């Protein structure tokens, strides 16, 4: 990649980008490959925090805060508790199947195809259009332009909460 060419003058932002990239990709792989699923859940939380770091690098601190509060604060903890509830020793030695090879090949094909497409596009020469936007602008946009979507989203959150409670009350009456 182009990152290695200008190694001599590594600014703070570039160093942060490289560190976040290593953190995000390695913890994403670890989330899927860790033997114990609990470690996978913790690794997923680390990946979500690295994504929040990317958002800060991209001048979107509000999205980064939202990501940390919603994902790392709520979803990751929820996943952690569920993993502890459904834990079984069977998964400690995962069965080797042909699906692993198929998955690796598909992932490599996808990555190389999209990567080549992106590298050959003109996206590499795009410069920053503008800097950070204020929180107030995001709030005004949410209320004025997208208020219907906001209401529907609130309804969806309520419905999903009710649905989750209903599902959690299912007893094993099926046989």
């Amino acid at each position, binding site marked *: 990649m182009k990152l290695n060419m200008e190694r001599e003058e590594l600014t703070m932002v570039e160093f942060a980008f490289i560190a976040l990239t290593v953190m995000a990709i390695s913890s994403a792989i670890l989330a*899927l490959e860790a033997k114990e699923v609990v470690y*996978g859940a913790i690794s997923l939380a680390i990946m979500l925090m690295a994504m929040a770091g990317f958002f800060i690098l991209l001048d979107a601190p509000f999205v980064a805060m939202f990501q940390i509060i919603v994902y790392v604060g709520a979803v990751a903890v929820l*996943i952690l508790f569920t993993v502890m509830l459904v834990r079984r020793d069977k998964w400690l030695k995962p069965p080797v199947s042909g699906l692993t090879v198929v998955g690796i090949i598909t*992932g490599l094909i996808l990555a190389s195809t999209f990567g080549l497409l*992106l590298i050959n596009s003109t996206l590499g020469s795009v*410069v920053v259009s503008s800097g950070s936007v204020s929180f107030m602008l995001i709030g005004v946009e949410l209320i004025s332009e997208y208020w219907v979507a906001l209401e529907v*989203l609130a309804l969806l959150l309520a419905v999903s909460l009710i*649905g989750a409670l209903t599902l959690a009350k299912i007893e094993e009456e099926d046989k």
Partner: protein
Amino acid sequence: MESALQYLIVSVALFAIGVYGLIAKRNAIRLLFSIEIIANSAILNLVVFSRYLAVSNVTGRVFALFAIALLAAEAVVGLSLILAAYRIRKDIDVLEMREMRG
């Protein structure tokens, strides 16, 4: 040096990792992890294009907020489905769940 391309490459890498997990894993929780990873690469794309391409660049960030909230709802429903399946079947191997096969 500072371009949209580097973030998009990271996003592609995360997407490929997520697709690999969706295909190769049999534990339902791991499938949920894969979905979260893929969705996060999509959210990263939203924020990247919001910064680098848009004229009024609030829209991509607002959409990223919507996407994060949607994924929280999705994770809640998915986890409770996994819990219900575990309670009924004592197992969360997706290759073993074949009652609904047509």
